[in-house]
């Protein structure tokens, strides 16, 4: 098990956002976390990557409880997080954004190799490498956010709503990229409101409802589950 979440309880002030959330991600998997707006999906990712501290519970990553480790140190343990809304550094160029993603790495040669690999995967970013990130389209910013996360050479990548606000063409492109990132050996924990898309590329999935996990299983089973189809697939 690469990542195991045990009985996670997270509060915003007095409001409980996550209630006893437990799930796990095995190495090499794509795990989807689906659920409605406000169910606690983003909170879950923020807690895993150390931006939020839980009130109780454990986050075991590579056999180590990382709950007390600060967010910036978790990155160098091989965990990258593509945040909701992209959060690219708007005033910095595409290339500078990518270099920022490699902040935890010191070897210049390796960084350049990874950068070449990222440009390979996202030719559009290469074309725009001197352009300021703020001037990119939403889809391009999403690519940049993903490329930036890949720059840290992660073992697991947490993706928060990568398809949000994108045109259908870009949505397909982004999901193709997630598939290929996974194929190259990176484990993916995917949070999505677009449940259908998420379930088609995931191995397993969990459903989060108002802060609790209410269902789990194989993604293919979930796609055929009646209640899921009604609640999340709009059928």
């Amino acid at each position, binding site marked *: 098990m690469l990542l195991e979440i045990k009985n996670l309880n997270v509060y915003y002030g007095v409001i409980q956002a996550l209630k006893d959330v437990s799930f796990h991600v095995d190495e090499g998997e794509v795990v989807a976390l689906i659920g409605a707006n406000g169910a606690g999906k983003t909170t879950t990712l923020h807690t895993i*990557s150390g931006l939020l501290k839980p009130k109780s519970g454990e986050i075991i990553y590579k056999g180590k409880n990382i709950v007390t480790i600060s967010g910036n140190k978790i990155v160098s343990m091989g965990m990258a997080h593509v945040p909701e809304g992209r959060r690219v*550094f708007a005033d910095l160029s595409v290339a500078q954004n990518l270099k920022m993603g490699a902040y935890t790495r010191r070897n210049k040669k390796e960084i350049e190799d990874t950068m070449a690999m990222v440009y390979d995967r996202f030719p559009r970013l290469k074309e725009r490498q001197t352009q300021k990130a703020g001037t990119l389209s939403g889809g391009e910013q999403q690519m940049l956010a993903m490329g*930036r996360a890949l720059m840290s050479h992660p073992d697991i990548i947490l993706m928060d709503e990568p398809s949000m606000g994108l045109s259908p063409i870009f949505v397909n492109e982004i999901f193709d990229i997630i598939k290929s990132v996974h194929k190259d050996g990176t484990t993916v924990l995917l949070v999505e409101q677009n449940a259908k898309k998420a379930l088609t590329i995931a191995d397993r999935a969990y459903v989060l409802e108002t802060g609790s996990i209410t269902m789990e299983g194989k993604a293919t089973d979930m796609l055929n589950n009646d209640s899921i189809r009604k609640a999340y697939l709009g059928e």
Partner: protein
Amino acid sequence: MLSFLTSLVNGLSLGSIYAIIALGYTMVYGIAKMLNFAHGDFIMVGSYVIFIFVSNLGLSPVIAIPVAVVLCLILGVTTERVAYRPLRNAASPLAVLITAIGVSYLLENVALLIFGADTKSFTSVIPWSGITLAGGEIRIQGVTIITIITSVVILLALQFFVHKTREGQAMLAVAQDRSAATLMGIDVNKTISLTFAIGSALAAIAGAFLCSAYPSLTPYTGAMPGIKAFVAAVLGGIGSIPGAMLGGLVLGVIEILARTYISTQLSDAIVFGILVVVLLVKPTGILGKIIQEKV
């Protein structure tokens, strides 16, 4: 004409001092997103340290200035750690602003307690008397020349640091988005501490030049230049490093020219009048960027 040139050079010198202070102000604002109103008082602390070492202990400024720089640096980092950091995520951004004003009064009153209210006569740290031009018609003091050169060197060093080093890049990232910076592996707390360290060290250097050019030292010495440097930072575009430099120089020149040609008493009113006009006409300052509130 000659007197105009003399005024211009003096203005650039005073402006360079404002610029050095404004650089600290603007970096702290840009990266920590707070106005450190105690920044001006760091200047006063640095100046007293130099005063003790040079005038009381008879040591060379070559020793006194680095000591003042280090002590101000420690003071700045400690102030941030003890007084500002706990309020960083406070519900109202006013909390930290008011605390900064409190720190300012605290420093002034501690200085009053230790050194008394009487004016100390500061010995210039620049022993060089300067140069004369145009057959003795124009005399430029050594401290004037050194101040201007130093401020340019500091500007270039900061630009290099911010754009070419790892720590500088971390500052740019933290300035734009703290959470995203954390997700890059950047230690936000450490980056903000470093910013305070640089800003406070610059305040000590500014103190050395300020008190060499205007050699009367009191516990309130830093207050007025601190506020004027704030005006300079706003004028140039708060958060912008070249903006702080430009704003400082423009403000210094305007202040000296106003003092020479309009009225000594009115010069401060003119300086603050500029703040009002800038805020009305171009709130982002000369080199400032429009801050977009993202929804």
